[in-house]
């Protein structure tokens, strides 16, 4: 049923889920798609962690070359799944929310490119290795959440 309103009564104040935006990069409280994406990602990452722990145990018992491939397969598959779900989530948003998400993503990852290049060209002198890169990726995800919150301030 359509909700009717009094012309003189003010609309309730516009609230944005700041914590969800900064921590998860989603509009968590506002729609079911955000909550579903957060839940799917959390379950996938939890399963990956369980898989990793199982691999640690397995690696002590089995000394076969294929065992060393497992962590890469587990985490690559997990993040591929999270990425696909993320794209589905963004596609499900309405036009303003989608444009905010894509803006935050483009700003973050364009700014992240120099950081990635820095680690590539300077890892020899700093002693950093390419194993450092996943950590940069996770840091970028947090940056994306902050950028999203900053972009949303225009509409708050």
């Amino acid at each position, binding site marked *: 049923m*359509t*909700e*009717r*309103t*009094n*012309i003189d009564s003010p*609309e309730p104040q*516009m609230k*944005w889920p700041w914590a969800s935006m900064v921590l998860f990069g989603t*509009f968590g409280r*506002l*729609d079911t798609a955000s909550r579903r994406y957060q839940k799917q990602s959390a379950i996938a990452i939890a399963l990956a962690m369980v898989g990793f722990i199982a691999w640690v145990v397995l690696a002590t018992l089995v000394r076969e070359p294929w065992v060393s491939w497992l962590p890469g397969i587990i985490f690559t598959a997990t993040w591929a799944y999270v990425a696909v779900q993320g794209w589905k989530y963004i596609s499900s*948003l*309405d*036009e*303003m*929310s989608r444009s905010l998400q894509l803006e935050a993503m483009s700003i973050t990852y364009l700014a992240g490119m120099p950081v990635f290049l820095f680690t590539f060209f300077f890892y020899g002198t700093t002693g950093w290795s390419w194993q450092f890169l996943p950590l940069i990726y996770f840091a970028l995800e947090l940056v994306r959440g902050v950028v999203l919150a900053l972009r949303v301030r*225009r*509409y708050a």
Partner: protein
Amino acid sequence: MKNRLHILRAERRLSQAALADLLGVSRQTINAVETGKYDPSLPLAFKIAALFERRIEDVFEPDVVVIGRRAAG
């Protein structure tokens, strides 16, 4: 871009949330359009106009209308 969305919505006695549901967008989008902070896409603008049975120019009005001249020659 200026618009008459708030007036049209009030005439129909619709809340922002109700209008958002009818248009399939978030309440945040309706609020941002009403306050002139967000310019809707052309499909959404047409959808809004159709919902209120108005022409698009009766709902939305550009801040400045610039009519370009055709280059001579």
